[in-house]
């Protein structure tokens, strides 16, 4: 056993700190998916993506021939932690492309697709921004229930249907789209395929869906006789479900370290806030309840750190994580949600203030966190779905749904 990171990783940590201090505007701290909403945030995100690409960090996990740096799993983990800590925007360009479209294309795409799409993502280009079309009105947790159809017509497929909760569709150049290609398959999982769809194709309509505090992060996307070249089918027809199970695993896995980084930073901010803020004539930090709430959250942050270490170590040993990605995502979501609640409590009356107003404290991070995390814990698999994965695949319990 050994609980120390290597010198290479610690050096990378320092380099990212330098980058963040130099490149980010004062007070800037971006949480997951937030950058997609306001134009000024998106602009900052995309210009940062470009700089991250130049540093060789944006897709550091990828092999060099696809524009990556062939970074080790430990470097990837530290990078995730630090990006979360500094709240660096643009790290995933709307998430899909960097986190799973690229890795999926490398796993089951063909060489032509890799050559065309991977460099666009790797270089941080606007044409490397992707959205992901999975959920539909009647296919949320029960994802295999999707109804959007693709029917082959010569050397094209014609797509009809509707996607919903599609993050970044209003920013994306491409859609990573799951459709039904065989509605008569004996099991619904066996009739699904994955397509690359150009968001500029005729027949696509993107309607914004504002979230409950008015931010435009996700959308509904309609496909009306959208024609897609057959060469845009990724992997095998009707094998999409099995392809996707792999990419969902990488999606969930990529969350853990940045959630830990977020948590560590928020804890630090709240500790400082508690020290600097007077309440009832004495510093907030002298209130035993405040001390204990923050201490309890610090314990859970440490657990999340070790969960990330554990899964990263498994990857270095060539072990495919079975349940760890789900564990880290669900545990991290709960922790961030809790930090939001604690933070709002500490803010007192200021917790009600619009995060972008002049009355806000800590640059509005706490209100944004508090409002955003109920959504994050639903994205990419609800906590309940993650728990089903752990129950079934780690504890060996029967299917519960």
């Amino acid at each position: 056993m050994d609980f120390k990171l290597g010198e290479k990783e610690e050096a990378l940590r320092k380099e990212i700190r330098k980058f963040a201090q130099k490149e980010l505007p004062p007070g800037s701290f971006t949480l997951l998916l937030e950058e997609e909403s306001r134009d000024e945030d998106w602009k900052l995100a995309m210009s940062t993506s470009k700089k991250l690409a130049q540093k060789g960090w944006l897709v550091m996990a990828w092999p060099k021939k696809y524009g990556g740096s062939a970074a080790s799993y430990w470097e990837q983990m530290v990078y995730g932690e630090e990006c979360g800590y500094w709240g660096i925007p643009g790290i995933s360009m709307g998430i899909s492309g960097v986190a799973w479209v690229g890795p999926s294309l490398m796993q089951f795409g063909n060489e032509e697709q890799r050559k065309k799409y991977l460099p666009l993502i790797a270089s941080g280009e606007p044409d490397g921004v992707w959205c992901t079309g999975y959920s539909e009105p009647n296919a949320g947790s029960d994802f295999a229930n999707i109804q959007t159809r693709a029917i082959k017509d010569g050397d094209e497929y014609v797509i009809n249907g509707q996607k919903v909760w599609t993050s970044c569709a209003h920013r994306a150049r491409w859609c990573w789209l799951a459709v039904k290609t065989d509605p008569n398959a004996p099991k619904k999982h066996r009739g699904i395929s994955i397509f690359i769809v150009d968001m500029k194709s005729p027949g696509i309509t993107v309607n914004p869906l504002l979230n409950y505090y008015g931010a435009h992060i996700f959308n509904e996307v309609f496909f009306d006789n959208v024609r897609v070249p057959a060469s845009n089918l990724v992997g095998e027809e009707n094998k999409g479900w099995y392809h996707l199970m792999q990419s969902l695993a990488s999606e969930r896995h990529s969350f853990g370290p940045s959630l830990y980084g977020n948590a560590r930073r928020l804890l630090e901010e709240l500790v400082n806030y508690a020290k600097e803020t007077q309440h009832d004539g004495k510093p907030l930090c002298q209130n035993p309840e405040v001390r204990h709430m923050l201490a309890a959250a610090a314990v859970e942050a440490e657990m999340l750190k070790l969960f990330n270490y554990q899964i990263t170590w498994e990857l270095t040993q060539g072990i495919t994580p079975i349940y760890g990605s789900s564990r880290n995502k669900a545990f991290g979501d709960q922790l961030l949600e809790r930090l939001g609640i604690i933070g709002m409590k500490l803010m007192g009356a200021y917790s009600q203030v619009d995060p972008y107003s002049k009355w806000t404290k800590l640059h509005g991070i706490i209100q944004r966190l508090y409002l955003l995390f109920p959504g994050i814990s639903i994205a990419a698999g609800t906590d309940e779905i993650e728990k089903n994965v752990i129950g079934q695949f780690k504890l060996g319990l029967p299917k519960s749904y």
Partner: protein
Amino acid sequence: MDFKLSEDQEMLRSLARDFLTKECPKSKVRELEMDEKGYDPQMWERMAELGWLGLVFPENYGGTGATFLDLVLLTEEIGRNILPGPFFSTVVCALPILEYGDEEQKAKFLPQIANGAAIWTLALIETLGGYKASEIKISARIGDGGYVIEGTKLFIPNATVASHLLVAAQTGEGDKGITMFVVGAHSPGVEVEVIPTIAEDKQCQVTFTKVKVPEGNILGDVGGGWSIVEFILERAAILKCAEVSGGCQAVVEMTNAYAKDRVQFDKPIGSFQAIQHRLVDMFVNVEGLQYLVYQAAWEISAGSPSKLHISLVKAKAGEVYQQTCLDAIKIHGATGFTKEHDVGLYFRRVKASEFAMGDTDLWRERVAVELGL
């Protein structure tokens, strides 16, 4: 970074698990709860033969030179099997002797611990029940060619069978006024009375009436006792958490097995999400606790203990043990509420584990200090 145990560690663990499963089935645990001594002297001898009692001592003191992490792995197995007896109380006294004892003390005390002849316990806390220097009221005054100890200690584990007591007593004022004494448990003036506890774990009240102690029995320096207590607390807290971690693992395993086996509404109850998700929460917290323990133990072994990482573990363990046992009992239904079922044996140890070496609040406060609060 490496999560893998060495071959030797794997061997120690599987040997311990086999030995304890065979020698200390739950029927034995129940028997020892009722036993006056609270441990099995024959098993104690076997544990000495296996090298467990002097595990971390150098060979010249009869030990095997293992690391603190090895000791933690062994303790985890002991906790998994809830082995009753003075293993923990003896080890937490042996560690400071090894660290602070002079050559004569080490040569005198350690080999006897390693070979099973001596049983020790730490006489630290008193009627206030807290782990602060200010709560140590028992006094040691100079006189009669040594010191005379007077006062009462409470919640002292296994004192009825101990041959030696490591006593924290007041020789002056404040943090600098505490001194550690080695006191023969059978010295004139030492009286021991068992406190009935929920865990039936033989915690005692120990009364000192004009107990004479020679100067040579001082461990470390006069007035330097509280730093020894701190040394003990940090290591003992991790060992206690290792016990808890092992206990939690056993409880999760038995509950998971039950959820697969027990059928209601024509299905195993583990197929219901209300049960399954509860089990998942139990499992994830227990897994996290296990890694927290390993991290702190590894850092102690590597000679770079982290106050924060140590404090985090004891701030969490009590809560995890309690919730794991409560959920386990509920998943077992009425069966889990019976005397015959093992889960209750674990639940009855939750509070004893939490209070040993400082409760959740005390360690959360330490975490808060380390966070800069």
